């Protein structure tokens, strides 16, 4: 009985799921970027039209969406650093699983710093 290949970087477990999450977050961020350039472009139409559209970003549902967007960006950025270390650091492949847990830890720390401030802006008065 031949054994299934073990220790591959992108087949199964952490390597595969981080790859998939990187792809899904990148896909989502791309479409937000298209919309974000369009909404910002309204500054060329009039202050009123820009303020009206950016006003929709300030309601609670959009505020939670922004938290999700920031989470996607932070994950994509941190896992991107992991990918670069896998590619360019001689011990990167060996430590890819450890680096995934470091990515997760840094993600939690950064989101713990971001979320209370952002959500207090969104749900606070003013």
């Amino acid at each position, binding site marked *: *009985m*031949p054994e299934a290949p073990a220790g591959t970087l992108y087949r199964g477990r952490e390597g595969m799921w981080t790859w998939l999450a990187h*792809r899904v977050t*990148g*896909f989502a*961020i*791309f479409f937000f*970027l*298209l919309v974000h*350039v*369009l909404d*910002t*472009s309204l*500054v*060329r139409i*009039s*202050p*009123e039209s*820009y*303020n009206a559209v*950016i006003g929709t*970003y*300030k309601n609670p549902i959009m*505020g939670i969406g*922004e938290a999700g967007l*920031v989470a996607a*960006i932070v994950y994509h*950025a941190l896992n*991107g*650093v992991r*990918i*670069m270390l896998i*590619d*360019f650091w001689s011990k990167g492949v060996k430590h890819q699983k450890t680096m995934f847990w470091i990515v997760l830890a840094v993600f939690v720390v950064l989101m713990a710093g*971001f979320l209370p*401030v*952002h959500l207090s*802006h*969104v749900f606070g008065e*003013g």
Partner: protein
Amino acid sequence: MTATTVRVPAPRSPRGSTRTNAELYGWIFMRASGALLLVLIFTHLFVNLLMGGGVKAIDFGFVAGKWASPVWQVWDLVMLWLAMIHGTNGMRTIINDYATKAATRITLKSVTYLAFVVIVVLGTLVIFTFDPCPPGADVALLPSFCTA
């Protein structure tokens, strides 16, 4: 379980004769632009969502105040171009992976490249033709330096 080997006659080079290093340069670009985008976008998020009043404080006056400085104009311009090239190349990879029919691939990539051109041209024009004090606008909505 017996392994079967498919015999492929030599030469085993891929279809087509365009053998360039384009994919290598794309691979390098994704890493180089990714590193820059991490700094550009984390700063962008920090300034716009964490400093001051966060998302609730963003309005025409806020944008005009930022773009009064050439630093933020160049910052946003570089961010726009790098993010759009990085994102479009990522979309190209995803389309190549999942769209198995040639016609589907060509259609999806054409739409993606069209979106790239429209968004990059529009965004670049907006940054460079922006007037922070448009004539006839309600002064209350404009940055404070417009009243002088």
